[in-house]
Each structure stands twice: as C-alpha cells, then as structure tokens.
C-alpha cells in the first residue's frame, strides 16, 4: 500500500502505534518503508513470526515457493550488486529445482509473482525484489543473506537500488533519494564513513 503524502498527518504516528499494539498480540505489524526508486513512503501489514502457521498463509504451492526462494537467491547474490536477474536466468533456474517447472509454467508463475507484486520486472526484462518482498520477508532475507544485504546509512532499510562508496571495503550505501537528501545538507560530497569523494556513479541494482 502506498500513501502518496509528503508528510504524515498530525497524530498519524500515534495512530499507527495504537494499531501496532493490537497487531503485536498476534505477531503482526503495520510497518513503514520507502519505495527504493522514488522514496515514496509505503506501508505493509507484515507477519513477524516465521512459525509453522505462517507457512500456511500463502496462495502458492510448495513447488512455487521453492522456485520463488531460488529466484530471491539469484537476485540477492547477483554479481556486481545488480540485485536483479535476467528472464533467461530466471527461466533456467526453473529447470534446476527439485520438481522442475516447464518453461511455460515458469513464465506463467513469474508473471504471477509480478502481478502479486512480489517481483518487479523492469523495462529491460530484468526481475528484482519489490518493496513488498523486502518488507514482508525482511526477517527471512536478513537470516539467509546477511552478507549480501546492506542497509542504507541514512534510513537503515536494505538497499537493493541505490549507490555505494567507491572503496571496496567500505560498507556505505545510500538509496538514490537518501543520497540526495543527505548530500544536500553537506558542504562536501564525501562518504560519511571513510571520507573518500562520493561518486554517485557506483550504482547498486539493475543497471
């Protein structure tokens, strides 16, 4: 769900925390994040407990879920911080899972993941994670791919579309909109951690 308002109305924070007090009783949370590409705020009702019951809460079959997990792995571990997978790679993966999917079944399923807003398909056909996936599967992603998923130093959300520091060892990452916001208040454009000149051309994500 996206709320296209620059500023939340008066009392909104309190409203959300009232809702969350109730939702926490059943291990759920109304959680806020931002669209990675434009920085618009988004909200999602997320499950915070990966118990057996939560695994029942899906309209996908176990085979479909195992394919989805492989896709996520492909996307997260892509070379050069691309955080995306070409459709050829995605389809190839479908033949590698335990119960292989035919090409046409995989194509249908990929479209379903896009329609259900779990994946995004860009203009050039590459698949990446949606904000829904990043929000709802946050616990899973952080558990499985701790070394790959690095947080933005401004908003502390995972960055899969943004910019990185020029220094290979430096962990500084920004979303594009977070970088704009941060550097607009700085005198010089250097990495907040290692103070090396910040080049906005070191892109994370589909490029």
């Amino acid at each position, binding site marked *: 769900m996206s709320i296209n308002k620059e500023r939340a109305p008066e009392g909104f924070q309190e409203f959300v925390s009232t809702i969350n007090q109730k939702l926490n009783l*059943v291990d759920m949370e109304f959680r806020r994040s931002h669209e990675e590409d434009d920085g618009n705020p988004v909200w999602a009702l997320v499950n915070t407990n990966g*118990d057996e019951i939560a695994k029942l809460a*899906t309209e996908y079959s176990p085979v479909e879920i195992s394919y989805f997990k492989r896709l996520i792995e492909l996307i997260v571990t892509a070379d050069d911080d691309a955080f995306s997978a070409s459709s050829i790679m995605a389809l190839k993966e479908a033949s590698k899972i335990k119960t292989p999917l035919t090409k046409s079944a995989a194509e249908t399923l990929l479209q379903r993941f896009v329609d259900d807003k779990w994946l995004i398909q860009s203009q050039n056909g590459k698949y990446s994670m949606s904000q829904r996936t990043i929000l709802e599967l946050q616990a899973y992603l952080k558990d499985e791919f701790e070394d790959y998923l690095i947080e933005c130093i401004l908003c502390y959300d995972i960055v899969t579309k943004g910019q990185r520091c020029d220094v290979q060892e430096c962990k500084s990452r920004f979303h594009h909109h977070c970088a704009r916001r941060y550097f607009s208040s700085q005198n010089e454009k250097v990495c907040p951690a290692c103070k090396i000149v910040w080049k906005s051309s070191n892109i994370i994500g589909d490029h």
Partner: protein
Amino acid sequence: MVPSDDSSNEGSGQILSQAERAAQKLSSEETERKIKDIVRLALASELRKVPLKRDEITRKVLHEHSRAFTVVMNKARERLRDIFGMDLVELPAKEKKAVTSSGTTRRGGANKDKSSSSKSYALQNILPQKLRDTDLIQWDRNGEQETMGLLTVILSLIHVNGRVLSDDQLRHYFRTLYLENNPKFELDKLLPNFVKQGYLDKQKSGFADSSSQAPEREHVEYRWGPRAKIEMPEENLCGFIKSVYGDDVPSDIIKQIERASGISDGK
C-alpha cells in the same frame, strides 16, 4: 452488532465447566499463545479460502488441551473481533437432501438441526456497513472482483430458483448471459473452485435422469455452500438483484425474490 460469547453450540453447563476446568490447566502465557495461534491459523485459512476445521485447531494449537477448545476459541473470537472486525463462526452443516423436498421448510432445516454441526469455521466480516463502503480499498486484485461478480450472479440465480439449480439450468443461464466461451471467465475452472472454497454446494441429484438422451451424464445440482451463507447476507443479495434492474425495479421486488426463493410461497 457483536455476537455474545454464549452463542457457542455447547451451551450446556456441564460441558462448559469441563472446558473451563481444562482451560485452567493452561498458564496465562500458554493461553495467550494459543489464542494467538488460533487467530493466525484463522487468517491463514481465510487467505486460502479453506475452512478451518476444529480438528486442525486441536492438532496444530491445542494438542493435549483439546478439551479447553470452547474457552480458548471464545477468547480467540474476541481478539479477532477486537483487532480485525472479524468473527470466527461455524459454517452451517450441509443441507440434507431429504429436507429439500418441501420448499418452505428448507431454510429453517439446517439451523434447527443442531446435532449435525460442521465443526468447520470461517471468518465473517462484522464491520458496520458504513465502514465497508469506502473507496479507500481497491478490491481489484488479480481480477478477483470479476470472479466475485460472477459468483454473486450464480448465487442470485440459485436463490430465485427455489434455492437449487441444476447444472443444465446453470449452463443455460450462462449461454443466455454470454458467459459461455467468454474469454474473461474460465467456467470449467471457476465452478470447481467455488465448490472447493465452499461458496457452492454441488451434489448429484437423488434420481438419475434415465430418459435423457445423454445417458452417461450425471444430474448435478448446485446450492449455496456454507461459506456463501455466512459471507452473503440476504439483504445484500436483494440489493444486488435490485441494482441489476436499475431504474425499472418493480416496487414489490423483495416479495418477488422471496416467492422465487421459496420462503413465502406467495400465500
């Protein structure tokens, strides 16, 4: 608006005290956890549109404390109403074929017969109407709206045909409404799905049509399924039928619907 807690089927004092005694063996943390798990199980089942069976609650949540069912269940219902505006209600038991011979008693039949409870539960929206009629919510997820529209049409047709419709009649209506071979609706997939989700009840009719020219074909009848009964209040259905007429709605439409559904017999 909110049903009271004593609406459970097991109203007898003895059974209730037994459940209460069983519930007392649970610590407050355990009770809290079981309430939470029932709520989560109910939400997960609803997403897949499968009924939540009492047996599943016992197996996945209560375990050896199955006797505390009534007490824990009532607390879980309270929490669902409080947080989500949803009640967890028992689905009506399937109508027995024998009852359907007389149109007038069909309706009360299932309700009176308390011994044949379904032991299956589903969520029921109990939000006041004014909170539901909001354009904040976009319902058009994956063409769900069209599918539910088709379902409402089918339920209406069943309703005004004395609450039962043969497969042949239904196909006839589909042809009339240009729904057959309509690329928007894969009827051969949607109908079994409605049955699976409990919106439609499909039964082979008691007598086979031996005179039929297609002798191998089964005679199949559709009725409202248990989920339709708890999700679709009759006044909403009447409202839907009225809206189909637009400005030309007859003034006695409600009476006509009642007569056609076999409630009043027009006498």
